[in-house]
């Protein structure tokens, strides 16, 4: 049992990683990006292409793909989100959903229905493991993913509270007009935030490809995992996302124990329970993510 808990916690690191960009964009731009999962899969395909065609290791490939993802984030904000957000809260949902359909089907058109993995390109890392006391084996890759999630979430927290750019992003998200009055370039702050969010999505896509298989339509489940982790994480800080990811993974592990098909059901049920608790306690939930540092700083 303790083995399953440890594996669950490590899987939670991946969920926190993929949830990170979603909740970051939501808290800053007030937009839930429905193309989130599809963009992660896009990044995985880009790394797969670099590895299989040009023999570039996925880790080196990140040096190319992450800046590319940042550029996509910037463009996304400038050309799609900024424009559609002016039409009210509903249009960005429709815009990003349309974008997801386009990305998924373009990937299908380009790569077909085959499932792929980045595992063959990272040598023995995909199956290497450490033996822990109590006859527990933990995968090196799973630990790397977990550590990346912790560093990324912590780094984002520090960036938002301790840098000028981070403060201007927070100011813009709180009140763009007032931020503008005190000399913050709101458009730039939002575009930078979107670029940062897409870098985290790119990383999540890389780890998705290394730890599992993916196909052109794998974006939707990733989006749901990210959303569930963020909602379960609920109020608090970016660390809430990490807790949410771990709870989601543990619920899935537990679900799989109960029934052969219980893995996904367990996660969805955990999401509903978290939602129920949150609604009855009228907590802040996803909305409250990143709010804590803002309050601390003020």
């Amino acid at each position, binding site marked *: 049992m303790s083995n399953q808990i440890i594996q669950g916690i490590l899987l939670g690191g991946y969920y926190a990683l993929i949830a990170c960009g979603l909740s970051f964009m939501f808290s800053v731009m007030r937009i839930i990006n429905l193309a989130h999962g599809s963009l992660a899969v896009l990044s995985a395909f880009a790394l797969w292409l670099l590895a299989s065609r040009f023999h570039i290791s996925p880790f080196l490939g990140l040096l190319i793909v992450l800046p590319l993802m940042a550029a996509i984030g910037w463009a996304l904000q400038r050309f799609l989100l900024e424009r559609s957000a002016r039409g009210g809260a509903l*249009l960005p*949902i*429709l815009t990003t959903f*349309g*974008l997801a*359909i386009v990305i998924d*089907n373009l990937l299908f058109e380009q790569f077909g229905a085959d499932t792929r993995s980045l595992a063959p390109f990272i040598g023995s890392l995909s199956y290497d493991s450490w033996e822990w006391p109590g006859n527990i084996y933990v995968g090196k890759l799973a630990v790397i993913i977990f550590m990346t999630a912790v560093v990324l979430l912590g780094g984002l927290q520090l960036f938002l509270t301790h840098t000028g750019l981070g403060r201007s992003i927070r100011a813009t998200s709180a009140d763009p007009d007032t931020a503008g009055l005190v000399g913050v370039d709101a458009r730039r702050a939002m575009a930078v935030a979107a670029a940062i969010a897409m870098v985290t999505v790119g990383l999540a896509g890389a780890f998705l490809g290394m730890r599992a298989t993916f196909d052109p339509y794998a974006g*939707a489940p990733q989006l*749901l995992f990210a959303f569930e982790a963020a909602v379960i994480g609920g109020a608090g800080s970016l660390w809430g996302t990490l807790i949410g990811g771990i709870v989601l993974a543990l619920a899935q592990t537990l679900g799989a124990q109960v029934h052969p098909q219980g893995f996904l059901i367990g996660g969805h049920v955990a999401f509903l329970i978290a939602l129920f608790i949150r609604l009855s306690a009228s907590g802040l939930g*996803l909305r409250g993510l990143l709010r804590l540092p803002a309050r601390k700083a003020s």
Partner: protein
Amino acid sequence: MSAVAPLIERGTATSRIAAIAAALIIALLAIAPQFLSAGAVDRITALFIYVILAAMWNALAGFGGLVSVGQQVFFGLGAYFSIRLANAGLNPFVALFVSAIVVGAASWPISLFMLRLKNGEFAIGMWVIAALTHLLVNLDRLVQGETGTSLISLNVYDASTRRVTIYWLALASMTALLAVLFGLLRGSTGAAIRAIRDNEDAAASIGVRVTGTKRLLFVLAAFGIGIAGALWLATSITFQPKTYFNVQWTAYMIFMVLVGGIGTFEGAILGALLFFLIETWFGSAGVWYLIGLGATALVFSLLLPRGLWGTLEERFGWRLLPVGYRVRLPINATDTTGEIASPVQTTTSREKA
């Protein structure tokens, strides 16, 4: 100008003609199977189902401000409950409608959860509900997971009776749902719905029952989409959970409503008609067809968020089936303010220069 009383209008000559035309079209459609080929009857049945889907999603999103990407849950449940009820011995045609009532009833507890969510959270929360329901339906032994099952009890009817009966049921369901929606939107509930969409807090402050009204729309949309799912099952016989709980159904609804004109009664119908034509012509293009749909939805939401009908309505003042009231200044007053006032201003500014 202030002396001129504004006209408050609803029914116009055009809208009265449109209402008569709509009645004629429905009457014509009712007798159409006698002249149409079997294939055409099937295709037009699909069109009726698309109109239901578009109108119901538009009721929820366009009038209620509730964008859901999980409406496939009700489509799938409509088909699933039909299978279950028919398996329990109910006449398959009756099962289709009882199933929709069950779907409507099931949507009530879902609404207790989901209507507490806002915007994007509601949209994707519904998607989670759809994913969960899909998995739970797969657990049913009758369904046998993704293998699915069939509505075998329809086999006692011969093919042509079946085809025409389903056609008429679809036409009747579409007409009834559109009529109910039209009546609802024209009445005081309609005013409440639009008030909530425009500003929820303001609506609540003047005594609109926000939660109750939203719940009504939510249940109506679930019921309508449940009928659509049940009818789709009747036309295709086989039930595979993957096909019915596929998010593409919601994608189609979004496409139809966005292109036709979100929040306009006529727009959803126009969108369904356009989608039907596009599917007939380009559906065989496979993946490029889907890319085209996604891209079109994207472009419309960015450049023409009011859709085709909304834009035409704005430009030409068209009202075929008016659900709201319109305040308009009498013709001569518009002339004074619109046509004469601006040249006067231009001359004064020129004189100053």
